[in-house]
């Protein structure tokens, strides 16, 4: 999918979305501030609003949403969805997602934008062996994700899923997902968006006789009801479920409307944990595995 705004003469507006933990490495702050300063001075974008949501981890109800003025016990999926609400209510063209432990290089946003892709990320690596990139191809035999490994340096690849530590998304991606799905409420109260093409009538608002979920002939059945107008929960763009991270969930929603993420390996971030891990670690690991060092 291409971006028409690529051809506009004015600079596109990019909001910054950050899912925060309680503490960040001071190295992260320095690098991120440098990157944002560089983009402001020399980049081809205009930075809109910085939407930071904390905490991304359970922290005993001390979560605080900055910019959207909401407090609530939240996990990463809820925090990201809250950031998206602010983004979609605003006027920015793109949102650039950062994690508070990934530091993108100086020209990351402008460079990702220049590709003309609507859903594209830079590369960052697992901060421990085998230092694999947080980007995945799906194994079509078992549906599980395998990390992308052994790509040529400089590659710009389409993948099946990416992390959201350095990822640029055009607003049209969110809008297309939202407009192509209907949201239902599961029996446990959680939300599930279903692609409109998969809906069969009748769509019910209430079940007369509640039944527990069951499996028949290898198919899982569960009573769901369409989300009511009075239910103020946001469209669930991100969900932590089935032991998987919320970014995989979003990538699958995007894929259901024909949009797959791209990975630009020339935008390489440092992933801070106890120590910074990055491209050099990945390269060393790869060369070791190939017997080159």
């Amino acid at each position, binding site marked *: 999918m291409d971006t028409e705004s690529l051809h506009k003469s004015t600079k596109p507006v990019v909001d910054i979305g950050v899912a925060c933990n309680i503490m960040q490495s001071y190295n992260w702050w320095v690098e991120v501030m440098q990157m944002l300063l560089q983009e402001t001075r020399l980049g081809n974008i205009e930075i809109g609003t910085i939407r930071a949501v904390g905490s991304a981890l359970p922290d005993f109800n001390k979560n605080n949403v900055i910019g959207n003025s909401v407090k609530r016990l939240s996990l990463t999926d809820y925090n990201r969805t809250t950031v998206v609400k602010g983004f979609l209510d605003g006027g920015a063209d793109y949102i650039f997602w950062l994690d508070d432990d990934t530091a993108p290089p100086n020209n990351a946003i402008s460079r990702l934008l220049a590709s003309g*892709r609507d859903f594209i990320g830079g590369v960052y690596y697992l901060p421990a062996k085998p230092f694999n990139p947080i980007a995945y191809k799906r194994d079509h035999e078992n549906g599980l994700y395998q990390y992308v490994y052994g*790509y*040529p340096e*400089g590659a*710009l*690849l*389409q993948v099946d899923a990416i992390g959201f530590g350095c990822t640029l998304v055009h607003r049209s991606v969110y809008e297309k997902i939202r407009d192509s799905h209907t949201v239902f409420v599961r029996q446990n109260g959680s939300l599930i968006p279903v692609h409109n093409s998969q809906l069969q009538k009748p769509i019910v608002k209430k079940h007369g006789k509640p039944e527990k979920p069951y499996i028949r002939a290898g198919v899982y059945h569960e009573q769901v009801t369409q989300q009511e107008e009075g239910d103020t929960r946001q469209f669930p763009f991100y969900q932590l479920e089935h032991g998987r991270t919320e970014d995989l969930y979003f990538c699958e929603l995007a894929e259901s409307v024909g949009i797959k993420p791209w990975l630009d390996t*020339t935008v390489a971030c440092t992933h801070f944990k106890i120590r910074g891990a990055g491209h050099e670690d990945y390269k060393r690991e790869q060369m070791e595995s190939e017997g080159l060092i």
Partner: protein
Amino acid sequence: MRTAIFGSMDVPPQEGLEVTHHDIHNYTLDGQYDQIIVGNALPELYRSQVIPFLDEMRKHLAFRGELVLYVPSAEWAAKQVFKNETDNLTFYMLYGEENKPFRACYSMLALRTLIERAGYITRNASDYILKLQSNAGEEVFMPVHSLTAVNNE
């Protein structure tokens, strides 16, 4: 739709598609093209000729027209040399043929840097296996870098 091809490649015929073949050392392009494919021909140019060639192609690409490049993977060939596992394919990838010698070989990063220095926007840069036929009629599968860039001006 107009496509110009450099190198010994071809595309399947389709209605409305006009294809012309050109020699990278001696060519005349006529007007604008929607797609220019350079298949294994860029390494035939001396390094000093590469940027002028890319500039020339940009002049002949329609707005949002695509330049598609295939070059042998220098990384793959270099690893074969490093591991002492060279064969005819490795030597072809590095040096070309007697009548079409290669003057340069390209890693993906080097290719992408050149393309972006020449003012293109990279849309796709990935590895690809190109099926070739040797002089003896044998099928050969060569790892190449495939790069698609657009002219956005």
